[in-house]
């Protein structure tokens, strides 16, 4: 059983179907949701074998608490983009956001959502935070943030590149990548949990994530891939 951050939804489905082809016997299902909530649940004994977090800090905490059966494996670095369905976002930069046509700007929660925190950092780094803050609306998570934009209620938003590239949203609107120099990296990591210590499938899937095939899928969905060297840290 896998607990995976919501932003992995599309990539993970593809990785999984590839994995299933290689190991037809394995019964795998994935729960997508909030990384923080998964962390709390695993602390309380939730029956997940692998935990793919959107923020590498959570698996690290679990590892430190002795709840992991593996090292913390970074598997991707997330990127954020400006995205809009009402305007052509291609070519826009954060500095364009104070323009009045962007009356509502959606970002994810800056309190607990990793993508929201990075968005705030980027807006501050670009020097437009105070100008746009009154126009910000906050989504509970990155998917909800995208829905604010998708439904047209927010004219533009900052969402994950993986969502902007997802089959459902790719057709709508356009996006502009936000320079990763404006925010701390969105490192994502996973662990095999303690309860899965003896689960061969779990370890096999952990290994599978390192295969070129899986990495290619991840890259296709807009995740940058950490250097293999990271794994050794």
């Amino acid at each position: 059983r896998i607990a995976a951050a919501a932003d992995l939804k599309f990539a993970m489905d593809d990785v999984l179907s590839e994995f299933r082809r290689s190991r037809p016997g394995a019964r795998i299902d994935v729960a997508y949701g909030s990384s923080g909530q998964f962390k709390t649940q695993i602390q309380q004994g939730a029956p997940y074998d692998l935990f793919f977090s959107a923020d590498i800090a959570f698996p690290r905490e679990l590892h430190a608490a002795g709840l992991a059966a593996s090292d913390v494996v970074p598997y991707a670095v997330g990127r954020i983009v400006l995205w809009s369905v009402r305007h052509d976002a291609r070519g826009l930069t954060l500095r364009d956001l104070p323009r009045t046509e962007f009356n509502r700007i959606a970002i994810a929660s800056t309190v607990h959502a990793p993508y929201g925190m990075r968005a705030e950092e980027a807006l501050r780094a670009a020097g437009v935070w105070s100008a746009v803050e009154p126009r910000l609306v906050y989504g509970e998570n990155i998917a909800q943030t995208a829905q604010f934009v998708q439904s047209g209620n927010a004219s533009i938003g900052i969402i994950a590149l993986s969502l902007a590239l997802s089959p459902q949203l790719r057709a709508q609107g356009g996006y502009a990548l936000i320079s990763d120099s404006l925010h701390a990296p969105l490192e994502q990591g996973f662990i095999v949990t303690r309860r899965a210590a003896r689960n061969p499938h779990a370890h096999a899937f952990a290994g599978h994530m390192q295969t070129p095939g899986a990495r290619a899928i991840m890259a296709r969905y807009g995740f940058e891939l950490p250097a293999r060297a990271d794994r050794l840290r």
Partner: protein
Amino acid sequence: MFSPGDITAILLTLKLATVVTVLLILLGTPLAWWLARTRSWWKRPVAAVVALPLVLPPTVIGFYLLVAMGPDGPLGRVTETLGLGLLPFTFPGLVVASLIYSMPFVIQPLHTAFEAVGDPPLEAAATLGAGPVDRFFTVAVPLARPGFVTGAILGFAHTIGEFGVVLMIGGSIPGETRVVSVQIYDHVQAFDYARAHWLSGVLLVFAFVVLLALYAFQPTRARR
């Protein structure tokens, strides 16, 4: 103890819960009255439809409302034509969404209470010269008081606690749509348990006082 954000959220929540409860009572009463008095075939389907929003997850309701009230949605078009602008991410939008979602908690008890009023006192009032509106206010409403109390309690409490719809429609804008439930949720999600506990505690104590006050309107049983 509290950040200014917490206090803003508390005040906003109070305002929202009060406005919604009052509106629900005002809007729910005629519908409940109709449901209680009509012999129409439509009665039961309508009553069932009123309870329907409940069965969808709040976030999903919120999503549908977001789309409906958005610039391309039917409701959104109406509000824009009326010059009201768009409702999502505004306080009025929150109010509308909460109204829809908490409606059954007010309608149901009112419906039952109005049915319990029965014909005799209304007939007596009619023979004494009271017209339909008059006897509604002077007989049906006072006799249905327990239903009003129950409806107000459930509506009020549910509006305070619900945040799935609110988050979706409100966008968590401080001072405008970030109510206490969202604030507590944020604290919990951010593992800031101390503040979550504090805020929950205050909310509970406060709600307890309000609920107790509402119960004071509940008549005590007569001796025989």
